[in-house]
């Protein structure tokens, strides 16, 4: 049995981490020592090839909260959650006491899960794809007993008829899953479609949003085409903050906010951590 959304723990404001990220960027344990009360959990992003690193093991061994963000599963393809992936991911998530699993619902690898096959593409925004995504989530939650929160991915283009919020609304409706809304990724989508930052939020089940992501993005120009690079630099775009502010009062199931900033210097991200904690106090 999976945990009801209402029973999921409130984690507060957390920081992202990836294998080896603490060595070059922010070590969460050192950060909480230097700046108490700002970071309450670590969201560890990994693929099975790289696994858990010493940083997240130390964090978890200290009894601190975590979530596990997969970087190697194509949620649009129910067959991708094979027995090996389910077993090894469950082992990794349990080893760090993850409160739930999450991850971008799109294409993390083409073909087999193999060297050189990694990339990240958003899902094809069709009803069939959303239904397949829902099927994957039901399969994983049933096998692992952990909640799976699909996340709206970044993209330089999106294919399909649906608005990305309508896509994830359908995924949640079909599977009963909670949702992870990445506000920076949503800002990218809205810009690409020429829409205001908070377009389509009214039809989105904000009461099923368990986690949100906030991250910096860098505007780039590709031969005259204005795009946003999901750079995870310190400063989120104004669009991203606008989405956060619109979502927070209505996200009644919200349990966690992740500030994806692990590759930066601590003093570059302090003020945003303070701001997020004021918005979502623990």
């Amino acid at each position, binding site marked *: 049995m999976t945990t009801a959304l209402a029973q999921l723990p409130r984690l507060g404001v957390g920081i992202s981490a990836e294998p080896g990220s603490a060595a070059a960027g922010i070590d969460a344990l050192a950060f909480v020592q230097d700046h108490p009360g700002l970071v309450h959990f670590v969201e560890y992003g990994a693929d099975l090839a790289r696994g858990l690193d010493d940083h997240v093991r130390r964090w978890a061994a200290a009894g601190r909260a975590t979530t596990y963000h997969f970087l190697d599963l194509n949620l649009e393809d129910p067959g991708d959650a094979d027995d090996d992936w389910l077993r090894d991911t469950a082992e990794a998530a349990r080893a760090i006491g993850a409160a739930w699993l999450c991850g971008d619902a799109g294409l993390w690898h*083409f073909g*087999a899960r193999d*060297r050189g096959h990694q990339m990240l593409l958003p899902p094809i925004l069709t009803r069939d794809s959303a239904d*397949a995504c829902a099927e994957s989530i039901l399969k994983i939650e049933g096998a692992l007993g952990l909640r799976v929160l699909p996340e709206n991915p970044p993209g*330089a283009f999106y294919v399909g008829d649906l608005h990305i919020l309508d896509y994830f609304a359908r995924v949640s409706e079909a599977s009963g899953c909670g949702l992870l809304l990445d506000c920076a990724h949503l800002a990218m989508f809205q810009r690409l479609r020429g829409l205001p930052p908070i377009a389509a939020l009214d039809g989105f089940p904000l009461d099923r949003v368990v986690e949100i992501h906030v991250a910096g993005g860098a505007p780039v120009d*590709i031969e005259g*085409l204005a*795009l946003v*690079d999901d750079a995870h630099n310190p400063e989120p775009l104004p669009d991203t903050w606008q989405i956060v502010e619109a979502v927070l009062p209505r996200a009644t199931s919200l349990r966690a906010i992740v500030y994806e900033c692990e590759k930066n210097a601590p003093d570059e991200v302090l003020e945003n951590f303070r701001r997020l904690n004021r918005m979502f106090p623990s």
Partner: protein
Amino acid sequence: MKAHLRAQQAIVRMLFDPEFAARVRREPETALPELPSTLRAQLAAIDPRALKMDRLLRQRTLRTLFDELKASTTLFLARTKKLSSLDDFFRSRAFHDAIATARPLALAYADFLGDAVSPIERALVEARRMKWPPADGRVHRAPGVVPIATTAGALAALQEAEQYLFEVGLMPAVALCDDAPPLALDARAQDPTPLWLVTVPHESSHTLVTIDEPTHRLLASLPAAHTRALQPLIDDEIAVQT
């Protein structure tokens, strides 16, 4: 396969191969016959500039492939003398078929390199991707065990290419110099003496062991363990030849 997954495969091909992407825009019906018309039109409408967002995608992928086929790539470039010849991989049938059939890219790349590929590196690529087959009452080669029939010259060429890479790697900036050391294969690389080897898993890696011809033939006659994402290499009609 569902249409959305076929569309993702097509997008991957478009990202790696600008010529294919241009063909999708120019003649979507013939470039993407496997897709429904709506998705086909949407893929054809992708702004080509958006496909260039990750400008290092191909270099990064080649770097990963090079890791497994270092000597083979070196021998290939020694012939073509053009770095851009590696980009031809992403236009090749081997690449596009690999995406369509979920074949490991490293094996497709080995095929692309043609007769420049070292049979030893090629066997190691395969060995790293094998896994236990379902029990069917037969004796299989264990995962990671791949017999290799090659020549002493091929082994020497591999070693000379590795030595060249080591020396160039001491100061990669030599690539900018007209008098940079060339890859020079000596007479040992032409030695046609038959050589039989087998890859053997050892801890988290593989080692090469020299075997005799009868042992090679025995191993080659056994059904192999599965190669991940490949059709099982099992033949019910195998007969041991002595």
